[in-house]
């Protein structure tokens, strides 16, 4: 491979560099209630992408002028740990992190029933422990689990996955290398039971047909992810619910 040349990301037999088929996500692991002092917390990993989310609240807002008279405000902080990337990342919030905080907040606002907690604030902290592509979608998945773990009223759980296009093939759940050398990256988050798309971004170029196909792939994957989220919640609370 010469400098500036795109590497071969899809092998001869149609599999990807890590041996996955185009429609396979990475191995997913989920846990809830991992932090003792948070009201709700979750740890989610998609392959080597590991994210920790914590929820505090509803509680007294620290800036009273921000308060909304009829509902709670949701504050989200997406942050990448300095050790999460290949090169050390400055711990100060970068432009990208501030933007992703906003995007994740807007992905969760439609599902959190904030009207039940007027004039309060719900704090959500998303910490990326290891970044290997798809951190925002993993963050959304972890955040919605943490909110459900905190017992905050929600319309549905949100789950996210990134669809990419590498070497002309649409692939599910792209990692760092595929993101870097691929032709397109489309993170999507959905509330699958309600059929709402709460996050949709697109980097790169997709044709109309490819976009429709990519959304179809995302929906199919997210239904599985959502099912896993529900299983994880039920596992933790099964002992409470049996009594």
């Amino acid at each position, binding site marked *: 491979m010469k400098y500036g040349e795109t590497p071969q990301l899809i092998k001869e037999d149609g599999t990807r560099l890590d041996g996955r088929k185009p429609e396979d996500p990475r191995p997913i692991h989920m846990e809830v209630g991992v932090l003792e002092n948070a*009201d709700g917390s979750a740890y989610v990993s998609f392959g080597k992408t590991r994210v920790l989310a914590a929820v*505090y*609240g*509803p*509680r*007294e807002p620290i800036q009273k002028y921000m*308060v909304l*008279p009829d509902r709670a405000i949701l504050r989200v902080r997406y942050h990448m740990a300095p050790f999460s990337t290949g090169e050390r990342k400055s711990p100060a919030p970068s432009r990208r992190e501030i933007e992703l905080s906003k995007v994740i907040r807007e992905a969760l606002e439609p*599902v959190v*029933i904030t009207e*039940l*907690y*007027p*004039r*309060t604030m719900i704090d959500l902290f998303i910490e990326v422990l290891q970044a290997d592509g798809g951190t925002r979608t993993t963050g959304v998945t972890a955040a919605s689990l943490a909110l*459900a*773990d*905190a*017992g*905050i*009223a*929600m*319309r*549905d*759980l949100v789950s996210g996955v990134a669809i990419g296009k590498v070497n002309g093939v649409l692939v599910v759940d792209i990692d760092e290398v595929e993101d870097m050398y691929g032709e397109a990256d489309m993170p999507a988050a959905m*509330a*699958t*039971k*309600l059929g709402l798309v709460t996050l949709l971004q697109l980097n790169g170029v997709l044709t109309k047909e490819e976009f429709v196909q990519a959304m179809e792939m995302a929906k199919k994957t997210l239904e599985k992810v959502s099912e896993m*989220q*529900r299983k994880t*919640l*039920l596992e933790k*609370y*099964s002992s*409470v*619910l049996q009594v």
Partner: protein
Amino acid sequence: MKNIVTPGDELGVMEEYLEGEGVYGNGNGYLRSMYTGKAFYDMVKRTANVIPARKAKFPRQGDMVIGVVTMIKPDMVILDIYGKLILTGRTYLVEEFSGTLTGLIPINLVAHEYVKDLHDYFYTGDIVIAQVTGSRNPFQLSTKKPICGVIYSLCPECNTPLEVVDERTMKCPECGEKVKKKVALIKNRDQIYSRMKRVLSFYVY
């Protein structure tokens, strides 16, 4: 239909049941759960309910709460609410909120009699039990009930914890100072505030 539900799971359709506790109708005609919990169908009221395994701690109308007086204005008392007091038979359960919330006791809800000066009822730093009468963040509280009132207070002269004499007076065991208070007529007052770890860390030393 599933017995154990997670947020977003269907409990039925709107023609079958009314929205009960922890259930919302989403406009497509379905009733869905808000929490992780157990589905419960009330066949008398025809409602679908969810009994949550865990619910965010938040005061509701009628709840008993524990707070600390932060400010006394001419016509109201301002409290920091730390948690909920659940009275189950003879025992108490204390449930702390995440952080504090603000509460207000307007002068007309302090006691049944005419209140001339609020300083005859509370003082800054008192730990108070009150009932929630409002439903949004500066929560309106009432201490009209006999079990509502001060459960812990320090002597204004020498900072020793006061002892209860009757429902309107507390006395300092060190200097004999008598202080007018609205005292909560409830057993084991010290047990209640000692369970509020954060209240304790601020005021009891």
